């Protein structure tokens, strides 16, 4: 925002406040009610469908509540003790963390590559945007179907490509050594477009004068990329990495559907384990405890990110 509009804004705030005093002197109480009236519909939904579930979920995690309605007795920390000693829970946390690292790196780097290339002003902007972003619009069911088909060991395109390069065909989704990689490849294809658009927005916000000045100083395109573009993208990169890590930690849809709903030790995410404990094993209390472990994981990683970002800024 420019200095002129900033001034205008300060001025209008002042007149607004003065007006409030003149016109509404003595209607303070009315103003209070209007505020709450505007807020009421959201607040009701917020308390009912967010605050209450957060609190009630915590309570459930200390009970042996079952989906069938049986149980419900307070059992203290038993669910948490069980979860922390449960190898499947640790395995699903491990899978989730591995997926998060292995998907975030290509999802940031490929998006950056796409955006930098598109921003060079190459004709066909519309086509690039459509190709890279369209998969993001598809439902997880659709992308799972497409990629199960591609990874089909007998007739899928993935093995046709491997064979074209003289490589051994793989049993992709059927083999525990490769099924998570198949899910990561599908996920990168599916969601990279969102990061690509964020990078593109940030790139197009870099003032052209900086490039012009660098150009006059004799800096070539690669030098400009290294000394202007990449440093200017640092803040948006922090944002994208943060959003991506939080999104990847929530892995469920594609991992569940690409394996046809079958649980696999190498692809079971923490959300999937939560689902299995609650809706397959009928153990609501235990599932709620796992969801709080998941919640804790998100908060720890979020706080760690915030601390790292702040330290970077201070330096």
């Amino acid at each position, binding site marked *: 925002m420019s200095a002129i509009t900033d001034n205008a804004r300060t001025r209008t705030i002042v007149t607004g406040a003065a007006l409030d005093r003149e016109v509404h002197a003595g209607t303070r109480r009315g103003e209070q009610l209007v505020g709450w009236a505007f807020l009421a519909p959201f607040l009701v939904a917020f308390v009912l469908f967010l605050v209450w579930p957060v609190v009630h979920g915590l309570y459930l995690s200390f009970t042996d509540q079952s989906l069938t309605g049986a149980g419900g007795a307070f059992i203290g920390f038993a669910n948490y003790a069980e979860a922390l000693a449960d190898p499947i829970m640790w395995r699903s946390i491990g899978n989730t963390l591995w997926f998060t690292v292995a998907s975030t790196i290509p999802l940031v780097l490929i998006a950056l590559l796409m955006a930098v290339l598109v921003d060079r002003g190459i004709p066909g902007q519309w086509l690039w945007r459509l190709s890279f972003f369209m998969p993001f619009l598809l*439902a997880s069911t659709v992308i799972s179907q497409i990629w199960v088909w591609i990874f089909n060991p007998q007739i899928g395109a993935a093995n046709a490509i491997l064979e074209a390069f003289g490589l051994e065909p793989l049993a992709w989704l059927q083999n525990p050594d490769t099924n998570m990689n198949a899910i990561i490849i599908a996920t990168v294809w599916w969601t990279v477009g969102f990061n690509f658009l964020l990078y593109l927005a940030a790139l197009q916000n870099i003032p052209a004068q900086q490039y012009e000045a660098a150009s006059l100083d004799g800096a070539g395109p690669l030098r400009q990329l290294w000394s202007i573009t990449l440093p200017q993208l640092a803040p948006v990169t922090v944002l994208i990495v943060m959003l991506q890590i939080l999104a990847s930690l929530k892995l469920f849809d594609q991992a569940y559907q690409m394996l046809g709903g079958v649980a696999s030790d190498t692809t079971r995410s923490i959300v999937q384990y939560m689902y299995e404990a609650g809706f397959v094993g009928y153990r609501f209390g235990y599932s709620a405890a796992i969801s709080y472990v998941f919640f804790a994981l998100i908060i720890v990683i979020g706080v760690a990110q915030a601390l790292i970002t702040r330290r970077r800024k201070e330096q």
Partner: protein
Amino acid sequence: MATVTETLVNPGVRAGRKPGAKPFGPLRILAFVILLLLAVGWLLPFLWAIATAFKTETDAASGEPTWIGATGPTTEAFTAILSQGNVYLWALNSLWTAAAVTVLTVAISALAAYAFSRLDFRGRRWLFVVVIAAIVVPPQALIIPLFYQMLVFNLVDTHWGLILPQIVAPAMVFILKKFFDQVPIELEDAARVDGANRFRVFWSIVLPLSRPILASVAIFVFIGAWNNFLWPFLVISDTTLMTLPVGLQTVISAYGVQYAQVMAQAVLAALPLIVVFLIFQKQIVKGVATTGFGGT
């Protein structure tokens, strides 16, 4: 913010203007080739799915890597899918529930955002902090207590049970509040001097001015609701009430080996959103920029 989105929706204006990029320099040709390879890589899976949808089951299962099957293109997979009947119903369910989620989310978020931005009431500050803090709560972590709640309210296996838990979007309140903060206050003051009450000012002045951001938020909420899988999958088990993603998932589990039909379903399910994208491309691109920067 405004500058970010405006330049983003019109990148063609900048095309070719980047200094140091000669019209046909070797780097530009290299960039073009890499982009082309990436675009092919990104389009190919989808084109392959479309091609398969137009094959007979025999051709689809033959494994021959050809675009057109030996028997030539046919729409029999589509006919087979559409004759099952439920697909239309699921599409309708998806449309109505996603539209309801969108309207309710945008309405309650816009009212709340306006209250946080412009109205003076006690507790405004700390309440806003609570709402913003709620952005970090992953919806997936709430499936157990929410399902329990739907059991209590008798909303399991109903569309309201599917819709209501999806309408709380603290991030959207945050984005809309940031926008309302920038609307010039003189316009509102003039109307208020003329005797308009707060709601009238909100309805006839603020909302019309906010049309672009409302459109971006609405499209984003709609896409999210249309594609949502986990919650509709848990709360709906009646086949006639299912949304498209959940309905298709059940069919695939049942007839997973009919490849042409599975791909025809994928294409049919993707079609509405591709049409939405082609129509609302600008708002969607803008929406990613604003909602992304808003910190969803």
